[in-house]
């Protein structure tokens, strides 16, 4: 069947069905707007298909196998064998259920779904090209558009992605065997999550990173805990080295060549090379220029606090609109875009957007660090609670890390938290709410926390900042 060049109209055209786009489309439909969502590849975007979800699934699987195999001190003797193909199949099942759910939720909310690749014809018209059998294209006239085309992994020269040896994160999440030796280029959060996963699955992992530590944006004591644990898992780090090229090794594997700034060269024998050096916006083929929109020098679409581009009725959300390139930021922006179009008083006015890294242990952060608070003119009060003083942490067998809370000394307002340790990704939620609510240290400390929980450590950190901690010595 060839779809003819019909022209349809819609109030809101959303391009891209990742966590930015599909959420925007659902909310727009909920607002009573006639909404059309165009996706060229797979519902759920990067996040559901080859990002957040598959990575967290493999982190769970590898974590469980590793933990069970290392619990002799708990009296558990197991020697788990992992069938990687089966684990990836399980992961695919999770992805399928979620992406199927996204499609169903869109339909249930009345979103019109179109499969194809969209590009702008002018400020109020897009063309959707249908691939595959049903080739052809259609024109769509829209009153408002939301660009949510996301991002893709950056390739570095000489390291074109190819499933048999140079992986992007997408291939690393789809492998049916565990390579004996995995070389990872890039010690950012994606590289570190996958380093942990593969190390636990039994690979010898080598991480090569240009900077002098992993996880650039985090504080030293946070990084140290994650790096130390990775080293315990056998991950080998080489800092200050950039990947220069790869070649075939004598043993059937590959050689990863690196170079320092000073020109010092090293070579590491590996079986796969994973390149995880960052992500770049997807705007090619979109013809943004036809709609009067330009991208910045890194290719991102600039937006204001209502997610509007330079062309008022066209919004951009998610990775394509720049930092923070996180799924929940994309979804929040998607909701704001839909509501702004519907005339609601929405804006990206959050005090703080939390972030998590699902390494071992996890990292969860929100708001300001002590240093950032000082830079903003606060006199910070800081409190900490180490997990090795937490009863709940001890009973889970995971006591690395701490909760740090940062507040304004004068008023007690909570400004931020850095958590590294078990369930840090979950614990950060309470602090995010505290920040948004304008809660003080006293409010957090006076809120009764269930015993025994890890969340008590948030309360204890707040008490510590007030010089009133019970389970740590106050500083």
């Amino acid at each position, binding site marked *: 069947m060839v779809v003819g060049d019909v022209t349809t109209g819609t109030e809101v055209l959303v391009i891209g069905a990742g966590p930015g786009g599909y959420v925007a489309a659902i909310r727009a439909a909920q607002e009573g707007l006639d909404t059309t969502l165009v996706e060229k590849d797979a519902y759920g975007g990067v996040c559901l298909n080859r990002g957040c979800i598959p990575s967290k699934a493999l982190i769970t699987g590898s974590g469980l196998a590793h933990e069970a195999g290392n619990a002799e001190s708990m009296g558990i003797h197991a020697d788990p064998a992992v069938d990687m193909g089966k684990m990836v199949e399980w992961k695919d099942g999770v992805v399928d259920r979620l992406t199927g759910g996204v499609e169903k939720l869109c339909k249930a909310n009345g979103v019109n779904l179109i499969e194809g690749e969209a590009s702008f014809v002018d400020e109020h018209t897009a063309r959707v090209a249908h691939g595959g059998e049903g080739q052809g294209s259609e024109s769509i006239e829209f009153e408002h558009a939301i660009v949510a085309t996301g991002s893709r992994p950056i390739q570095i020269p000489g390291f074109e992605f190819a499933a048999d040896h140079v992986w992007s994160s997408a291939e690393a999440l789809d492998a049916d065997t565990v390579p004996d030796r995995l070389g990872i280029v890039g010690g950012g959060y994606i590289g570190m999550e996958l380093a942990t996963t593969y190390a636990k699955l039994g690979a010898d992992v080598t991480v090569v990173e240009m900077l002098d530590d992993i996880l650039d944006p985090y504080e030293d004591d946070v990084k140290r805990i994650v790096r130390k644990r990775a080293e315990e898992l056998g991950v080998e780090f080489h800092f200050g080295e950039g990947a220069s090229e790869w070649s075939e090794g004598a043993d059937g594997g590959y050689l990863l060549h690196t170079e320092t700034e000073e020109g010092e060269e090293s070579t590491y024998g590996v079986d796969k090379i994973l390149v995880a050096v960052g992500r770049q916006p997807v705007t090619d083929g979109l013809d943004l220029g036809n709609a009067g929109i330009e991208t910045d020098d890194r290719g991102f679409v600039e937006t204001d606090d209502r997610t509007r581009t330079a062309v008022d009725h066209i919004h951009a959300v998610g990775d394509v609109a720049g930092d923070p390139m996180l799924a929940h930021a994309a979804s929040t922006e998607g909701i704001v875009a839909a509501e702004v179009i519907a005339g609601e008083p929405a804006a990206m006015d959050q005090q703080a957007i939390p972030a998590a890294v699902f390494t071992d242990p996890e990292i969860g952060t929100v708001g300001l660090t002590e240093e950032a608070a000082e830079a*903003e003119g606060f006199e910070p009060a800081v409190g900490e609670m180490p997990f090795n003083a937490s009863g709940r942490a001890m009973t889970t067998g995971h006591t690395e890390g701490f909760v740090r809370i940062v507040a304004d000394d004068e008023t*007690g307002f909570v400004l931020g938290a850095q958590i590294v340790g078990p369930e840090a990704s979950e614990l950060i939620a309470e602090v995010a709410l505290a920040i948004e609510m304008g809660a003080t240290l006293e409010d957090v400390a006076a809120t009764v926390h269930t015993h025994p929980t890890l969340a008590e450590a948030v309360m204890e950190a707040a008490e510590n900042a007030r010089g009133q901690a019970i389970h740590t010595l106050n500083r």
Partner: protein
Amino acid sequence: DSEPATSSGRTFAPPSARRLARELGVDIAAVDGSGPGGRISEADVRAHAEGGGGDDAGDSGSDEAPAPTPTDVGSGGRKSAVKKRGE
């Protein structure tokens, strides 16, 4: 002309108050907060919009649709225990 709540000048107000401020065309930074440390509540935003801060209600920089008439904020006769917690 209103005192910044903290040394940094940041305004502390829950999301609901911030959104209400936009809805009413109020610059939240100009609202006097009645909460601890100057924290701004929805009631503070309404009080400001209803006259307290006439001098800056217009310079909110909002280019949204004109501020709708505030919906009735009175309790409307129905008893709610939450009201007892204070605004």
